[in-house]
């Protein structure tokens, strides 16, 4: 055993109050110091915080960024979502593997570099992208990939890969990142100027009930995708019995193709924190938690700095905005570690409680029993920004933008085959066609709206509005040009869900694997007409029977392409003439047996 391990673990656990509820922080810190959370570490952590080793293992093994086995001191995680693939990430992957000298999923023999794939890193507007430890490296080419590895071999410092900074706060001394914001269109809600404290002062001059009434009057709905009325959520939380109440901000932006929260976190965290504080006042809570996805760890120091600054200004901490309001509120940052499902509000709570990111059964809802069984409100980053702005400018001002059922503006993260990828703040109700003109993608053959869990639609839907009642999206809009294969995209989205399913319920854990396999069969040219009915029936079953929002939307890539691009499927399937199973490969089936007996088959050579 590493002699320092015990001392380090004792100290790390102590730092988090020897509280097993802070398991995420503990294991992240242990891994940062020792490269992984190995058997010895798991035993020691369990002993120190008085839990069982298998509980520690349960948490560590759940998250993609955590490992029980040693990895390289430098981990390169190349994004492998559809957008990165469209921008050449396969070639970048090949270049990386060649230059590093190991295939993806492996570590060099000197223990220095590990190559891994990652699902969407939130950098689709500057794809292909990778994370080198915490450092984002964008706009990768094969040359840049080779250069990157050579540099890392020289100095082993991912920070030195950043030779020039991106725009805005990306150049801030606490971020120092090459990431660009790519804000293409500023609206009046999120990307307008703000004076820290202004909205909060206004809220504090009202009673909590009045604040909730104002949010309800604005008809603000959750920006994460589900669209639940925010004011009602706050009201339920305020009305639920409990000694403590929590405000959780969901910054686990993991939906493929979404990156608007990255830009909010970089450019307007004050607005978001102000929204959290207002929510805390409204529900009668004293603690806020920002759940920050592991992929955005590079923003953490800056966000901590903004929090410290707000404390200094009296906008957080004891007696917010003066003693007369009798309101204490503070915010802590909870890091995630690579799990899309933690964007589901109850899974996010599980993760904050230090366990695997399994969604919880509902009822009870978080508003009744959330974090640590206390009434909790979980809101999206953008929703909280809207809430703050509504306090500043009034519900009526907000509600006159957008449509009746979808008031306000929406941030769209646009990526793929378009001339101007980036973030657009547009009024709700804008037709797809108008957005496509704005982003330079008039020739789009298809768009995936709402991310992997959303819908794939074609030109016949381009006159529909983007809104909760029309085409809904949590922000992602991926554009596919005339030469793209929509089924390949659907297949990649299914692959994503197979990787990201927590595995709790049967339909999502098993059904998505089966959907992906059958799609693969069709893409391999072995599909038969009956496969389309199979996909439809299975997709519907996964949708209806799954336990949480992930499973309930995971078959959408298949179901919406079947609906809107059935001709593509029909062009690929053919009636099987010889009646044998078209996908059965006798040679592949014999491989395990051949390995055991150590010789080739005489018949099937």
């Amino acid at each position: 055993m590493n002699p320092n391990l015990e001392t380090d673990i004792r100290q790390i656990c102590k730092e988090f109050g020897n509280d097993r509820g802070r398991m995420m922080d503990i294991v992240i810190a242990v891994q940062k110091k020792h490269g992984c959370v190995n058997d010895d570490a798991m035993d020691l952590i369990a002993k120190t915080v008085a839990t069982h080793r298998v509980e520690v293992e349960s948490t560590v093994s759940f998250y993609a960024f955590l490992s029980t086995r040693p990895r390289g001191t430098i981990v390169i995680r190349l994004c492998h979502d559809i957008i990165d693939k469209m921008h050449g990430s396969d070639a970048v992957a090949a270049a990386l593997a060649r230059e590093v000298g190991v295939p993806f999923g492996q570590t060099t023999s000197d223990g220095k570099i590990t190559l891994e794939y990652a699902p969407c890193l939130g950098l689709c507007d500057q794809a292909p992208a990778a994370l080198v430890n915490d450092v984002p490296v964008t706009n990768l080419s094969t040359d840049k990939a080779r250069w990157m590895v050579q540099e890392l071999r020289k100095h082993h410092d991912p920070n030195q890969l950043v030779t020039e900074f991106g725009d805005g706060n990306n150049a801030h001394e606490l971020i120092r990142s090459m990431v660009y914001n790519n804000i293409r269109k500023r609206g009046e809600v999120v990307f307008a100027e703000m004076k820290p404290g202004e909205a909060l002062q206004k809220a504090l001059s009202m009673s909590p009930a009045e604040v909730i009434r104002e949010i309800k009057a604005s008809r603000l709905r959750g920006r994460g995708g589900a669209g639940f009325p925010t004011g009602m959520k706050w009201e339920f939380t305020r009305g639920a019995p409990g000694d403590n109440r929590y405000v959780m901000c969901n910054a686990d932006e993991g939906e493929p193709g979404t990156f608007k929260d990255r830009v909010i976190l970089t450019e307007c965290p004050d607005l978001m924190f102000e929204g959290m504080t207002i929510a805390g006042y409204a529900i009668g809570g004293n603690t806020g938690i920002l759940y920050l996805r592991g992929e955005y760890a590079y923003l953490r120091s800056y966000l901590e700095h903004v929090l410290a600054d707000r404390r200094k200004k009296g906008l957080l901490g004891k007696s917010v905005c003066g003693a007369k309001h009798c309101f204490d509120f503070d915010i802590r940052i909870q890091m995630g570690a690579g799990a899309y499902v933690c964007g589901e509000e109850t899974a996010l709570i599980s993760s904050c409680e230090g366990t695997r990111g399994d969604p919880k059964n509902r009822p009870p809802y978080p508003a009744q029993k959330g974090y640590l069984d206390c009434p909790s409100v979980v809101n999206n980053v953008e929703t909280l920004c809207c809430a703050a702005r509504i306090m500043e400018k009034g519900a009526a001002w907000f509600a006159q933008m957008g449509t009746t059922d979808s008031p306000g503006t929406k941030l769209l993260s646009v990526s793929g085959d378009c001339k101007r990828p980036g973030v657009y703040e547009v009024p709700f109700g804008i037709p797809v066609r108008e957005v496509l003109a704005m982003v330079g993608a008039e020739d789009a053959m298809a768009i995936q709206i709402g991310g992997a869990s959303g819908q794939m639609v074609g030109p016949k839907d381009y006159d529909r509005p983007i809104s909760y009642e029309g085409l809904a999206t949590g922000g992602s809009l991926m554009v596919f040009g005339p030469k793209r294969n929509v089924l390949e995209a659907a297949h990649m989205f299914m692959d994503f869900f197979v990787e990201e399913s927590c595995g709790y319920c049967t339909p999502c854990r098993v059904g998505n694997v089966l959907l992906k396999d059958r799609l693969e069969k069709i893409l391999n040219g072995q599909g038969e007409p009956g496969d389309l009915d199979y996909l439809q029936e299975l997709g519907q079953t996964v949708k209806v029977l799954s336990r949480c929002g992930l499973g309930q939307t995971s078959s959408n890539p298949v179901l919406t392409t079947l609906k809107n691009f059935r001709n593509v499927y029909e062009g690929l399937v053919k009636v099987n003439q010889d009646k044998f199973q078209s996908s059965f490969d006798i040679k592949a089936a014999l491989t395990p047996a051949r390995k055991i007996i150590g010789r080739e088959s005489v018949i099937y050579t």
Partner: protein
Amino acid sequence: MSETVTLTIDGAEIQAKPGQMILVAAEEAGIYIPRLCHYKGLKPHGSCRLCTVTVNGKPMASCTQPVAPGMVVETKTEALNQFRRQILEMLFAEGNHYCMFCEKSGNCELQAQGYRYGMTAPRYPFQYPMRDIDASHPDIFLDHNRCILCARCVRTSKDLDGKNVFQFVNRGKHKRVAVDSRARLAGTNANVTDQALGACPVGALMKKRVGYAVPVGQRLYDHKPIGSEIEAKASR
């Protein structure tokens, strides 16, 4: 608050206790809703989804959905039975289930549900996963090939045995039951008298050296389908 809640299940008016889950309320009224992860004495888990019913037309897991006044619940529609067969077929295709030589045959809840819902062979391709057997313990073995991830052992060990022998690790299709020791089951405080053993619905967690003790014809589900003991209550 009134003492009872009145709701309709399969056309019959039922009295239930406030806060009771639909599955339990139905059971007390002699209506059997199939289940695998639900287990008496444990908190509801809601993972297998076999107990899905429609509540006012909307599909919901009846083991985690509390009763409410005026609810109209359907438990036996053809659409639901189709869904159940699909869930069962998914479970059979996911693991390595060889009933013909499994010690649990005849007493296995997964197998019994398959019979009850008229499943013949899965419509889904078998996944044939490579899974492990932990036979390190002197009296117990854990055969992951047969595990359906219902968490009954995990919860029983924790809530009824007061131990913490089992917990899930990994996620998605890689999710599996792990034990509380790096030295496998032998390194844990698991005991052959633990209630966790009896909680396993399939042949994953088994007592050693007692396989095939009950002759065919006398096993639990040899004559009557699973759930008939509950349905017998209604006909009395």
